[in-house]
């Protein structure tokens, strides 16, 4: 599936960038001096061995963790000291590695919760809930796109693990973020959904930047324009998938003898 999509539109602008990003936990440096540029209309993969610091980088970028050093810039604004919810409101939204849904809300309500904010329907304590019904159209559209429409009224807790991941993606997309950070979105998904979600990501990346962590290399090679390889908190290699996957250091540290 060597799609033209893998060709990266080089000229697109940088929307999220980090310089000298560092995070230490006590004496242990989980992330060391990482520079990262995430571009609009690109799928950017962050890969690397377990414990390399990928999730930590996500936590830093979304401000769930405060960097020990370095700076982060989102859409021209310095967000090094901004609160996480503020960052989300500025258009940088993430998913979680261990699935995160609102367990006792229905699938539809999960998505509507996300839709409330961009539609400015979240602080009105004087309006009836039915005022949220105008979000249904968009919510159902999203659910259809990810293939969850049949379960729209199911309580999220009753979904199987894989389906929860899918719901999480729908919820994240509902915010219509400018930059999307996905932490192992395909983990635990069956083949069917992997194909489906790959398509969705490819689709949404046409208008926004996507940074994703993924261990499924066929997905990475399929949909990612740019790959950064992290090892022990540092950048080991960078480039498109073809280049990176040929790098012997990457092969020993991460891929093993897996045929690309």
């Amino acid at each position: 599936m060597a799609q033209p999509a893998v060709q990266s539109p080089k000229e697109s602008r940088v929307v999220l960038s980090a310089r000298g990003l560092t995070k230490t936990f006590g004496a242990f440096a989980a992330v060391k001096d990482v520079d990262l540029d995430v571009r609009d209309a690109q799928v950017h993969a962050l890969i690397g061995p377990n414990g390399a610091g990928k999730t930590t980088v996500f936590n830093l970028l979304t401000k769930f963790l405060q960097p020990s050093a370095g700076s982060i810039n989102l859409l021209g604004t310095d967000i090094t000291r901004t609160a996480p919810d503020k960052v989300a409101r500025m258009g940088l939204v993430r998913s979680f590695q261990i699935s995160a849904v609102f367990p006792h809300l229905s699938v539809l309500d999960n998505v509507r919760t996300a839709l409330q904010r961009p539609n400015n329907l979240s602080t009105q304590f004087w309006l009836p809930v039915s005022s949220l019904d105008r979000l249904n159209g968009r919510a159902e559209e999203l659910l259809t796109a990810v293939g969850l429409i049949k379960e729209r009224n199911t309580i999220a807790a009753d979904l199987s693990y894989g389906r929860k991941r899918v719901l999480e993606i729908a919820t994240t997309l509902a915010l219509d973020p400018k930059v999307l950070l996905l932490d192992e979105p395909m983990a635990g998904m069956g083949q069917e959904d992997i194909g489906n979600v790959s398509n969705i990501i490819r689709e949404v990346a046409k208008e926004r930047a996507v940074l994703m962590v993924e261990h499924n290399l066929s997905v990475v090679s399929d949909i990612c324009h740019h790959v950064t390889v992290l090892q022990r908190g540092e950048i080991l290699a960078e480039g498109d998938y073809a280049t990176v996957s040929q790098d012997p250091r990457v092969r020993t540290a991460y891929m093993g003898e897996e045929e690309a």
Partner: protein
Amino acid sequence: MHDMSDAVHTTKQKAELAQSRKTSTSYAVFLLAGFALLLIAPMFFYPIFLMKLLCFALFACAFNLLLGYTGLLSFGHATFFGGAAYFTAHAVKVWGWTPELGVLLGVAGAAVLGLVMGVVAIRRQGIYFAMITLALSQMFFFFCLQSEFTQGEDGIQQVPRGHLFGLIDLSVSTNMYYFVLAVFVIGMVVIWRFINSPFGMILKSIRENEARATSLGYSVARYKLGAFVMSAALAGLAGGLKSLVFQFATLTDVAWQMSGEVILMTLLGGIGTLIGPIFGAGLVVTLQNYLATSDFPVTIITGVVFMVCVLVFRRGIIGEFYASRFGRMLGFEHRH
């Protein structure tokens, strides 16, 4: 935090249109019937008892707004209830304000207290939250115990009920009753609207998964604080009203046992149900009155009721009713 709602969720949510229509009709019928009953109740019951019941019912509903819909268990709500009682009593007695202004001052005072307590307590969740609110309300209790304006353990006594809007004489029992009833209904409408609003939806999401709500861009602390202050203000409404009904404000209303009592009411009625706490309050108030003249020791009975409720009727009176076959037949699906 999500287990709290186990008691109030059935596994499957069937939001079929017909069902929900049936539910809302049943609700409407029930509410109208209830309201009609309250209108004629003074003909059958002792008005002061009814008024006390309404005050506590409103207090419990205000408390439930926080516990049932944000999952925050406050062990310090006596502060708002009793605090407002003092403010209202003081304003009416010492400054000679009209009763409605006095009550409004109580509400405002309680809201301010809520803001102060909230800012500190909101930083923690669950049990920590409960403990912190408890400790802060103890501080307030000691403040009231020592402060001049509360008159220590004598309390502010002989508070005049005055004239509503300067016109209606509230020392007439029936007038007072309908005033209390009106305030109660307004309070309930406010609560109902609040929980069934876009804001209320976000509160539910936050209770379900805070980190996720943050990552969606909601500043969790502010929403919680909003709910906390709202709950405090409504508890204040109930407290202010009570001080006019009984014409005094005393330390019992700010003591931590009062916070325990309101929890009991809510638990008995059904956490997370709109009208459950009304029944819970009714039961507790009746029980206390009844036990007062019986030979049973009150604390033991209260304690046992508490334990039995937690162990057996976790859903509370209304919750069990909704979940029962009869409740379902009428179209009450237990949900929120």
